[in-house]
């Protein structure tokens, strides 16, 4: 089996893995993760994030280990481990997961736009524009996707500095008391924060598109570390800015924090923040939908545009007919316990099976 058949000229340099991983992880989660985390762990939430970050690193290690034995993408690995039929079944599950991931990101973002900016515009209008844009980016191939991810990353770091403005109104005693939560609480917090740190698993699809892919592991780790640190930073700033009780009540603490920024010529920064966030979200959705459509392409041997059309029309229909706040909860539920559980259980299992097969072949 060739390396999932990727021409050398479509590949990207290994260091873009940093941006791909980091950008995929940073999305909607970072705007709203504080509330659930504060509920379960409060002032010790940063430990949950660090723990979650550590788990992410372990999984990145697992993914690279799998691919060091079976070069290719997750579909090759599945086939290698379980044979054609069962392997394809699991591959389909991954395709479904990526599709749901992309859709969740899009619908959550549209929800934010509805709540904060344009209440009256139908969600189908936003999703239509996003889908056209995603299709346009996809037609440029993976190099274009990487490019837009890279640019969106570079262009967004300045938003971090806006948070420093919030520190002006901070109360550092809010961080205390520390270490009051049990290990169980912290583990629970880790589970809550997984939506923020999820996204690294897209390596499973784009691995064959990386030049000298084995060398890219350090960049993947660096990307995940960057996300973890940023998440901890955002959480700590939220902790010192809000009191515990406020934080538990606030759905989008990050946005509320930025809304207090005031300069002589500008105030209410959250409008800029939300609009700018489109630049962050679009690569996010693009990579997920790219992964889903590429999965179908690999499974059924069709041109990638057909599954992408299908997926786009599916998402558009969902947005036209069933969009409401509840659908976000349903989607989040699919992603958070089930999707995450699937990945957490499946990937180590896959590694073990592939490893055993390799050993047996050697003997």
């Amino acid at each position, binding site marked *: 089996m060739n390396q999932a058949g990727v021409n050398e000229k479509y590949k*990207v*340099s290994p*260091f873009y893995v940093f941006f791909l991983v980091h950008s995929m992880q940073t999305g909607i989660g970072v705007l709203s993760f504080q509330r659930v985390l504060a509920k379960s762990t409060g002032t010790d939430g940063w430990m949950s994030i660090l723990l979650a970050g550590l788990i992410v690193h372990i999984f990145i290690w697992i993914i690279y280990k799998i691919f060091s034995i079976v070069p290719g993408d997750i579909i090759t690995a599945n086939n290698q481990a379980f044979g054609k039929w069962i392997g394809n079944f699991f591959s389909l599950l991954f395709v479904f997961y990526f599709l749901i991931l992309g859709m969740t990101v899009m619908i959550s973002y549209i929800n934010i*736009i509805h709540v904060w*900016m*344009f209440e009256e*515009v139908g969600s189908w209008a936003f999703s239509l*524009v*996003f889908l056209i*844009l995603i299709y*346009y*980016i996809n037609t*440029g191939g993976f*190099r*274009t996707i*990487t*490019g*837009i991810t*890279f*640019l*969106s990353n570079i262009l967004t770091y300045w938003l971090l500095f806006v948070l420093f403005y919030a520190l002006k109104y901070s109360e550092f005693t809010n961080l205390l008391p520390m270490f009051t939560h049990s290990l169980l609480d912290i583990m629970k917090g880790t589970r809550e924060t997984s939506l923020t740190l999820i996204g690294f698993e897209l390596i499973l699809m784009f691995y064959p598109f990386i030049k000298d892919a084995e060398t890219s592991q350090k960049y993947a780790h660096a990307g995940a570390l960057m996300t973890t640190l940023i998440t901890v930073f955002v959480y700590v700033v939220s902790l010192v800015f809000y009191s515990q009780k406020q934080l538990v009540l606030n759905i989008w603490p990050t946005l509320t924090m930025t809304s207090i920024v*005031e*300069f*002589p*010529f*500008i*105030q*209410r920064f959250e*409008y*800029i923040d*939300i*609009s*700018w966030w*489109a*630049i962050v979200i*679009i690569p996010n959705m693009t990579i997920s939908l790219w992964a889903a459509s590429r999965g179908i392409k690999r499974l059924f041997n069709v041109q990638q545009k057909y599954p992408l059309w299908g997926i786009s029309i599916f998402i558009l229909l969902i947005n036209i007919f069933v969009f409401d706040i509840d659908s976000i909860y349903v989607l989040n539920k699919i992603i958070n316990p089930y999707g995450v559980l699937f990945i957490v259980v499946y990937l180590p299992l896959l590694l073990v099976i592939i490893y055993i097969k390799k050993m047996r072949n050697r003997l």
Partner: protein
Amino acid sequence: MSLEVTTLFNRRKFNKTNQQKNDINNELTKISDVRDLFNALSLSNDFMNHQGTYNGVGYWVSFYRSLIDAQELHKNVLSVIPSLETINLEQMKDSIPIEDTLITSTKVVIEERIMRGAIAIRLDSNLDECLLINIAASRGRQVDKPELEFGIISPQEAFVEDIDINLNLIRKRLPIPELQVNETTAGTLTKTKVAVLSIEGIVDQKNVDTVIQRINDVDFDEILDGSHLAQMLYDDSNTLFPLFLYTERPDRITSALAEGKVALIVDRSSSVLITPTIFLEYFITMEDYNMPWIPASAFRLLRIFAVAFSIFATPIYVAVLTYHYELIPKDLLETIVTSRNLIPFQPLIEALFLEISIELLREAAARLPTKVGQTLGIVGGIVIGQAAVVAGLTSNILLIIVALSALASFVTPIYKMGNAIRLLRFPFLLGAQVWGLLGISILSVFLMTHLIKLTSMGHPYLEPIYPFRMKDWKDSFVRLPFNLFKSRPVNLRTKNTERQAQTKKSPNKKNDFNE
């Protein structure tokens, strides 16, 4: 008629068996062709056939009156004849003081040379052999100051329409044998000469081959200008952005060639093309290299800021005033509201009104003679602008913003990039009207994607930003000191990457402090 039939017959009969006969037949057709050619050319009234006799030998001088230099004809060609003993093409060729001469009887060559301004001399004894002497008149502009890319502290020479003068301007700057010129033609009617220039040993030969290949693939009747041709060579013609840099400065071409790019000179075009190019190259002036690196970098950053301002200023005004007036602090909001409270339109209509009037002014000024243009500037800029504000059609603040962004779009050194920037504003205006700031940021992603996808001769347009190449940042947004210019741009994949010896030390700057 009968001759033709026999010829055909002969050809068919002897084709396989008698090679010699076959050659003679070919000779026969060729001969009748040359005579036909002159008969056909004589149908045009500006084609001259002058008959003369010297020492009893009759000769013909044929040429296009409109293509040749009559003075040269009399001084150097006809005056030579009396000095000859017997008239004979070989002898004539040797005694005429012009190098570009040829004796031939091939129809295609004769036709091509005559059409490019050669005269043909034939003797009555053999009317099929011609002596072709090139005395083409070169009428055209002299080398002048650059108009579009004027520079204050850089050479004041610009290309003209003549390909040889342009080549001369470049060769004077690059007196090395490695500078290679590949000439070809394009255009089925215009037969425009195109010269592809590159420095052997530096340039990636693949680029030269691609350019020549694409020029030869062009199948169009008229090629009137360089940018005309360039559009047919583009990787992607559905774009606002110029993919080939179009310049009238010989120093810019020289520097591009030295970096390992390919230059294209198109005859009768006063500008020369550079390819492959990158996006940021269009914001570079040659003056940047003639200034110390700090002001050069500062001005370059200023130019890039101006471009961003010019695209985004008016759309942001429309977005903020249509949807997000909360963004503006109270004190500033008061000012804006006061200036706008009598205006009956939405911000978008107000902005479009002003933008379109500025575009009209600019378009009108480009079509008018300079002297009238100045009046137009005063009438348009001051009178209309002021009157529009007084009449309550637009606000003062918007007038300032629109005027500034128009001003900012003029700072791009390459006119065509300025055009692209100028047009880009309008989709952003509509985006701002539809979804405010969100519309602007979605359109920005569209724009970024488009720029990432663009390639110039197969090389990514947005390099060194993406693909990210640290080495090429020395000459992108900023222009770093020359001692850091150690290598040629990475994306050109030059054969010789070294621009200066790596070991060269900077001059010692020791003083008592360092001791």
